């Protein structure tokens, strides 16, 4: 019974996100600009520097998974802003008074953000093809890659909700969000292999969930080397479970 209530709320949250997206798609398009610049400008320029060991993959192809993930994670990391806004209005109070459990609200919102992130990636994906990026033409691999995108985005959205429940105001949240996003991106294998990093950064990259997501998406979409993919998925599932639990527990705090 309680599980039913919770599942229903989760689906309602996803539906809400889809309906909001349908009414106003501007954000999806404007947010696609930055990743496209990363590919078209940064990728093109850096591909002339032939010192980055990419195992023979063109540099622009190499960074495509990282840029795709970065753009979706941007959406997720700032998803907490929606929660902060809903806290300032009465929506959160109201959701907490609804019959569904509180963890359903958190997980539902995180999943909804994951769905939004996948839509975001679907905009960038064809642009990458136009830029000449060669994807592995295996539909199963592509679907698995999008599943990874969805899972990691949901996890980061939960992290964002957790941060929102501690920060509570827009300004403080924005500060943390900005401070989080770039290190997350740079301390991962999104733009360069981990082996190029100094040891200290390597150890950070190895606990950065984004590293595992990039590795999986790169294997599935670009290199075809899928040996590590199961381990990558396992790492991201562990991250998701942990962060969903932490965010659900701290969510109560947001209305106090």
């Amino acid at each position, binding site marked *: 019974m*309680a599980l*039913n*209530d919770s599942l*229903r*709320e989760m*689906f*309602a949250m996803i*539906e*809400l996100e889809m*309906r*909001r997206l349908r*009414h*106003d798609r501007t954000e999806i398009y404007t947010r696609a600009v930055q990743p496209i610049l990363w590919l078209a400008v940064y990728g093109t320029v850096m591909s002339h520097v032939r010192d980055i060991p990419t195992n023979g993959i063109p540099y622009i192809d190499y960074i495509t998974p990282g840029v795709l993930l970065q753009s979706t994670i941007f959406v997720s990391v700032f998803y907490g802003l929606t929660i902060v806004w809903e806290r*300032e*209005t*009465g*929506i959160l*109070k*109201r*959701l*907490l*008074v*609804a*019959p*569904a459990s509180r963890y359903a609200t958190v997980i539902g919102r995180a999943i909804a953000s994951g769905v939004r992130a996948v839509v975001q990636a679907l905009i960038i994906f064809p642009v990458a093809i136009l830029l000449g990026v060669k994807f592995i033409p295996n539909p199963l691999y592509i679907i698995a890659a999008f599943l990874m995108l969805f899972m990691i985005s949901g996890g980061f959205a939960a992290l964002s909700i957790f941060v929102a429940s501690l920060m509570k105001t827009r300004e403080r949240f924005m500060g943390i969000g900005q401070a989080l996003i770039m290190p997350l991106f740079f301390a991962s294998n999104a733009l360069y292999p981990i082996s190029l990093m100094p040891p200290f950064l390597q150890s950070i990259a190895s606990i950065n969930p984004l590293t595992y997501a990039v590795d999986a998406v790169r294997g599935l979409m670009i290199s075809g080397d899928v040996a590590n993919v199961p381990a990558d998925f396992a790492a991201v599932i562990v991250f998701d479970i942990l962060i969903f639990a932490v965010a659900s527990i701290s969510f109560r705090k947001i*209305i*106090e």
Partner: protein
Amino acid sequence: MESELQFAIEIKQLTKVYDGKVNALDGVDLTVKAAGIFALLGPNGSGKTTLMRVLTTQFRPTAGVARAFGYDVVKDDAMVRKIIGYVPQEMSVWTDITGYENLLIYAKIYGVPSSRRTKSIWDALQSMGLEDVAGGAVKKYSGGMIRRLEIACALLIKPKILFLDEPTLGLDPSARKAVWQSLEMFKKEYGTTVFFNTHYMDEADQYSDEVAIINRGKIVKSGTAGELKSSLHSEVIKFTLANHGVDFKHTFSSVADAKNVDAKNSHLKNANLKNADRNNADRNNADRNNADPKNADPKSRLRLLETIKALDFVDDVFIHDLNLDVVVEDGDVALPIIIEVLRGQGIGLERISVTKPSLDDVFLKYAGMRHPKDKGGNAA
């Protein structure tokens, strides 16, 4: 069991302490009758929002017990959430989707079965008079429409208790009226208990069956609005005394004179002039009235005062010129007796009016004192 269910809400010694120091609620005792409209009044920071948030299971109380239709708000919180509707003070709908979509999402969150969903949504829209705008984006709604949509969202599950935190804050008078008319209709149809917080005394007076005043985390007074007002013992009966027979004649004759003047000047058929004459006549009249009390016997005035003051239901008496003000608890009962006394003294009356205290007076008496200590009791 029967007697218990007469109450929608029962609260015993409810206490909420924030951060171990601020006593937002300090031993609240309260019962709210089922199927009525209950208004909780209190100054800012008095604890009324905190009380509502404890009752709606958002906060756990520090001590004490609160039940909604027998369900404990702490132990049976999941059950409580199934029977209540709640509209917070702040906006609680998504503005980037339509009104209908808001109701649809809330219907799914609240678990309205899909077979009944569409009907529930249209019922709620109809209850709040929003059928025509349901398909429009909420960001284009007026403040009153948004508030009605928020209430409509709470009505989807036909709650047994509807909690409204400052339901008409910031609305213009006609929007306020529309909100209340819709609420009264809904209440009548479904027998829902309505529990609302407000700053608007007129609203509590007009729409509530019961009122309680909270101040510094305690209920300081409760009852019907009428009971609270009469508890002030301050209805004022104002008599305008007539002068004795002679003066009446004077008064009448001046009016008659004026009429004569009118008649004499009637060939002018000038309305303005007529009015001017009337004004003159009135002024004559007023002059006489003002002049006469000076000639009145001061001893008899004093005697009149003493006699009325001696009546055991009279709290106070004032006399000035031809006006006699009597302060009593219940004007409707006191009035015939006082008239009898005045007649016995041979005093005629020109006008009588009874001024009843408003709920504002009640509020000021019980919650008017602001305590600097109270700051922040309502912190979110």
